[in-house]
């Protein structure tokens, strides 16, 4: 039996695991963690086998479609892009599940945890496998729900419940935009068929969408006085969804708060998988983006700005997990930038962005799991109370340092020696340089370089504050159990070597996504449509450009070492509430205050209150008018009801007399 025929099992097995764990988990040891672990392990094996098969022949993608209703279908599509995502997600999910067995051992409801993470894994895999945009959207919402459930896993804590709500509502803004985009797309495609769609044509399937890109691009609408091509409109709406899901500026506010959930959830959902769904969406619909004038520029700018913006906040946070959360936002910005530079490098952008996505999944999951290991052993995640943890937890510390090196992208340019992050991050920064050369806008490149410096600064600050020096408080602690350290070691190994092993093959493999037996698009032709000039990535960049990321990363390391390792430079005067810049960063640019206190409370809450009052008054007035009418008419009508029988008798007699006269007159006339 060919392994392709088992592809549908990849999301189905974790979904079954969800049901089984949900109902039987309580009766099994460790909350029944063995069920999802087995299911995801099988999914991983299937994904890996399919990926290997695709590597041999990237054109033969797995595509199975079934009619759902009318012109819509459900189906699976495993092309190179989906295959690497599937393998990464199943792998990361598997290791994190194994790790969770140790991490959640003291929790009250481990079976609920494992059921929810299994459901999440199933939804995420369904999202990746979707061969049409509607199914993708359904799974997109499902992962959102799982994220909500898992952030609020300890829902008895008010902060966790609030964070879950915030995450759900913030991403909803993006989701509404995404859905609007789908609706516009559907309407355009439906019009193209004049309402009669032949059997077997599923208009929201990616191949069908991509085949109609030039026609969609030809449709124009006037929005706010500007002539906008529908392809730009749709892609920007999709990107809006990605901004919400992937925590890009300005909708990133939910991601740091999402750290209220268990650390394993942060590792699985808010570092490795769900937050990358936005990047995956843009990568999946990349042919549309490259055909849309201005869309890729927006993607590049938002991505680069997010990378820098989140980095500035990362350097002042004192909470272990929050530093990592801002780091995630920053790295997601890099991935978006990687896609945005497709304006210059074409389909290769998908390759480098997804490469960074996969590498990031490994080292960021590792960072979170290390943080989880520390929190599990020590019981606090305030870095100011930690210090010298390396002595107590050598394995955790070693893996943490490897992850940090991978995050900062340490490696020697021009050779294939380096950590995973080196290959992908530098590729993005170099492409940003090409983007600058090609479009003449250098801001994304400058932002990405500045963000690289900040990345190095905040992560080594974290390392030095947590793992070195003298313990600041008496926290005790011990090395974590094997179920936790083994996943750490595996992740660490991958963070170290995955990039180097696959750098050559990965880009070409993933970039071939859009040329196969399912979809076949000419990226160059589409780029002409979008008005982008593609350049060949020939490696002709100046030497300084190649070395720049390493230089700034080392600079960040040195600064962090001087300040937090050797404590030669005293930062106390800078790190205080009196320093306006520190205050601004520490308060997260007051964005939280603006969003919560101004937008939510003043604008939305007050606005709804005002509208509510107006509507209320309207209803009140109408109801009162009717009641007044009834009362007043009753008031005047009751004058007739004297209660004196004689009056009634008079009325009756008058009436009868009139009737008699009337009859008489009528008879006479007739």
């Amino acid at each position: 039996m060919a392994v392709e025929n088992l592809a549908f099992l990849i999301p189905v097995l974790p979904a079954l695991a969800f049901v089984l764990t949900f109902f039987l988990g309580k009766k099994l040891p460790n909350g029944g963690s063995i069920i999802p672990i087995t299911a995801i392990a099988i999914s991983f094996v299937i994904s890996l086998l399919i990926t290997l098969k695709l590597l041999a022949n990237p054109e033969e993608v797995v595509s199975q479609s079934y009619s759902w209703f009318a012109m819509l279908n459900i189906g699976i599509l495993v092309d190179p892009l989906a295959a690497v995502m599937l393998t990464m997600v199943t792998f990361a999910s598997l290791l994190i599940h194994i790790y969770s067995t140790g991490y959640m051992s003291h929790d009250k409801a481990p079976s609920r945890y494992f059921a929810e993470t299994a459901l999440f894994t199933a939804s995420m895999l369904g999202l990746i496998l979707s061969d049409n945009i509607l199914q993708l959207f359904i799974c997109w919402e499902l992962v959102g729900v799982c994220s909500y459930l898992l952030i609020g896993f300890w829902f008895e804590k008010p902060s966790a419940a609030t964070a879950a709500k915030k995450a759900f509502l913030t991403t909803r803004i993006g989701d509404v935009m995404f859905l609007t985009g789908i609706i516009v797309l559907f309407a355009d495609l439906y019009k193209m068929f004049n309402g009669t769609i032949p059997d077997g044509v599923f208009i929201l399937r990616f191949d069908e969408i991509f085949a109609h890109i030039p026609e969609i691009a030809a449709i124009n609408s006037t929005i706010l006085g500007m002539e906008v091509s529908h392809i730009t409109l749709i892609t920007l709406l999709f990107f809006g969804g990605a901004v919400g899901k992937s925590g890009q500026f300005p909708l990133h506010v939910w991601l740091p708060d999402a750290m209220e959930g268990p650390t394993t959830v942060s590792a699985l959902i808010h570092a490795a998988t769900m937050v990358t769904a936005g990047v995956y969406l843009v990568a999946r619909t990349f042919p549309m983006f490259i055909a849309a004038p201005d869309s890729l520029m927006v993607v590049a700018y938002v991505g680069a700005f997010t990378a820098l913006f989140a980095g500035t906040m990362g350097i002042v946070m004192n909470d272990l997990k929050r530093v990592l959360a801002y780091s995630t936002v920053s790295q997601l910005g890099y991935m978006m930038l990687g896609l945005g530079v497709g304006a210059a490098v074409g389909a290769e952008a998908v390759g480098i962005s997804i490469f960074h996505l996969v590498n990031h999944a490994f080292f960021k999951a590792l960072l979170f799991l290390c943080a989880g290991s520390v929190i599990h052993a020590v019981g606090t995640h305030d870095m100011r109370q930690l210090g010298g943890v390396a002595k107590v937890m050598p394995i955790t510390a070693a893996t943490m340092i490897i992850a940090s090196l991978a995050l900062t992208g340490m490696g020697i340019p021009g050779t294939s020696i380096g950590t995973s992050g080196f290959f992908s991050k530098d590729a993005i920064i170099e492409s940003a340089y090409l983007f600058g050369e090609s479009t003449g806008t250098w801001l994304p490149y400058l932002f990405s370089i500045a963000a690289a410096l900040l990345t190095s600064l905040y992560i080594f600050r974290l390392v030095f504050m947590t793992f070195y020096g003298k313990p600041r408080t008496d926290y005790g602690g011990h090395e974590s159990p094997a179920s936790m350290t083994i996943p750490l070691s595996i992740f660490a190994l991958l963070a170290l070597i995955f990039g180097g092993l696959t750098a050559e093959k990965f880009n070409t493999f993933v970039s071939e996504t859009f040329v196969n037996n399912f979809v076949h698009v000419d990226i160059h032709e589409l780029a002409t449509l979008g008005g982008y000039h593609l350049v060949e990535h020939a490696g002709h960049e100046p030497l300084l450009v190649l070395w720049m990321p390493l230089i700034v990363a080392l600079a960040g390391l040195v600064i962090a070492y001087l300040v937090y390792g050797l404590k030669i430079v005293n930062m106390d005067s800078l790190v205080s509430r009196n320093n306006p810049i520190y205050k601004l960063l520490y308060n997260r640019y007051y964005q939280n205050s603006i969003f919560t206190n101004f937008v939510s409370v003043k604008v939305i809450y007050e606005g709804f209150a005002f509208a509510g009052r107006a509507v209320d008054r309207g209803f009140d007035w109408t109801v009162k008018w009717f009641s007044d009418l009834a009362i007043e008419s009753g008031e005047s009508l009751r004058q007739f009801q004297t209660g004196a029988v004689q009056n009634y008798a008079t009325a009756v007699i008058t009436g009868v007399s009139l009737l008699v006269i009337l009859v008489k007159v009528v008879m006479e006339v007739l």
Partner: protein
Amino acid sequence: MIPVALYLAVAAVIFSIGLYGLMTQRSGIRILMCVELMLNAANLNLVAFSSYHDDLTGQVFALFSIALAACEAAIGFAILMALYRMKDTISLDHINILRW
């Protein structure tokens, strides 16, 4: 023979007197008397037509009607007596104890 129209005219006059009294008077006894007048106007009609048609049914009917009127008057006066004892008046304007 007196034409039937005259009987009817007399009956109409008596009926109208009764009706007028019913509408204008406030005293319970007067109203009862007016009701009796109207009833008997009707009886007069019955008897007149009975005689005119040579059919005794109408006269028998009139007897029944008179008997019923007697009963009605007896009950009516009894109620008024009871009310007078209770309220010292038989003006119907003041007898409204069953009204809300």
